């Protein structure tokens, strides 16, 4: 592998994991918030299941997505296996429960404090969600970052559904695995350093953005 590939791999890692985080957040945040304010039968059970899903092994997710996308699988015709799309899909599945659970916690805490006020003001469910998501934005950002951190560091699922194909689906984590097995330890370590730096940059960037937007509130 050439040093020039490093940029490509890094950018692919970022693109895949940021997309996965974005998609997962779009699913998980409204769902987590809804779970926090909506009383229904079996709510506790739903929350327990959600929390259990946080620990779902990525390899298993990879396997299931593989089966779904493989040529003989139900979505085989889409031809997504061994493309970045399959990797994004697998990562979405891996991190959605985590983001949803953290969102649920944040929104639940706020809801317990705001409930009387919001009920008294006769707010619609949509208005409640908007207020809770807005006031809980710091917690939501943490949830998003946690999801991104898990996605970008994940290797089991994307190895299976992406295939670690050079110039197609190779990302930082799968490259580290490959280089290590080839004995290119110095290169693997360099890739690891890039991976950590990336996490830091994204995290600091998100914090800086949110601070610029409004001053610290807690």
């Amino acid at each position, binding site marked *: 592998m050439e040093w020039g590939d490093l940029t490509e791999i890094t950018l692919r890692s970022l693109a895949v994991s940021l997309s996965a985080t974005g998609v997962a957040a779009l699913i998980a945040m409204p769902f987590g918030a809804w779970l926090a304010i909506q009383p229904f039968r079996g709510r506790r059970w739903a929350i327990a299941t959600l929390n259990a899903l946080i620990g779902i092994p990525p390899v298993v997710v990879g396997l299931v997505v593989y089966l779904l996308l493989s040529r003989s699988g139900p979505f085989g015709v889409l031809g997504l296996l061994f493309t970045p799309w399959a990797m994004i899909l697998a990562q979405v599945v891996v991190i959605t429960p985590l983001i949803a659970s953290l969102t649920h916690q944040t929104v639940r805490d706020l809801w317990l*404090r*705001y409930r*009387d*006020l919001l*009920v*008294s*003001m*006769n*707010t619609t469910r949509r*208005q409640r969600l908007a*207020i809770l998501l*807005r*006031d809980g934005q710091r917690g939501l950002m943490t949830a998003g970052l946690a999801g991104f951190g898990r996605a970008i560091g994940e290797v089991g699922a994307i190895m299976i559904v992406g295939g670690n194909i050079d110039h197609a689906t190779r990302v930082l984590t799968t490259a580290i695995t490959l280089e290590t097995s080839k004995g290119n330890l110095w290169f693997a370590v360099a890739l690891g350093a890039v991976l950590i730096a990336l996490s830091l940059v994204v995290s600091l960037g998100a914090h800086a953005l949110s601070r610029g937007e409004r*001053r610290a*509130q*807690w």
Partner: protein
Amino acid sequence: MVRLDQVWITRAGHRLLGPATVTAHPRGVTAVLGPNGSGKTTFLRCLHGLEAPTSGTIEWDAEIAPQDQSFVFQKPVLLRQTVRENVALPLKLRGIKDPDLTEIANTFELNALLGRAAVDLSGGEAQRVAMARAWITNPVLLFLDEPTANLDQATTALVETVIRSTARAGTRVFMSSHSRAQVKRLAQDVIFLDAGRTFGPYDAQEFFENPPQAARTWMEDGT
């Protein structure tokens, strides 16, 4: 007119209110009095609809729409936003953007605070913001749960003036209070609570001149 008939509110076997049997023809300010834990907050919440009776019935002769009611909580609840956004919240929820807050800010002396983050306010300041937010919709029915418990004398006087003029203008006010002097100054009617049980309503003047049996012990100690 509102009529409560044998209303009980219990939670996990614990009595919050009951038996509450009251027929009130609210005019001006109706004070809700009673010792700590007697159920004043629960009673107000029940009238407002925040608490549903476990048993018994509550009936209004003319239902007052939720958007025509406001409730000021004993502990102010403010959003993590600016004072301005907090005060304007009820209007924003009704689709009114950038309302003019000059008048309400003057009334509650909030002009210097409008740009501040609500979480940074002192207890008394937060209480004034919560009141401005409750008042901004010109409610027909206003619930105040110990509105001046956190306020200094000057601010209490200010708030009492506002309550009085609001009641004169036709808003019906239910307020709980620990200050008998304040109730004497403001209220036309008194409902007394003791361990969840309601007594009254009494004409306020009569209540203080010749306290009913149930309220006597409570009247004797303290202010």
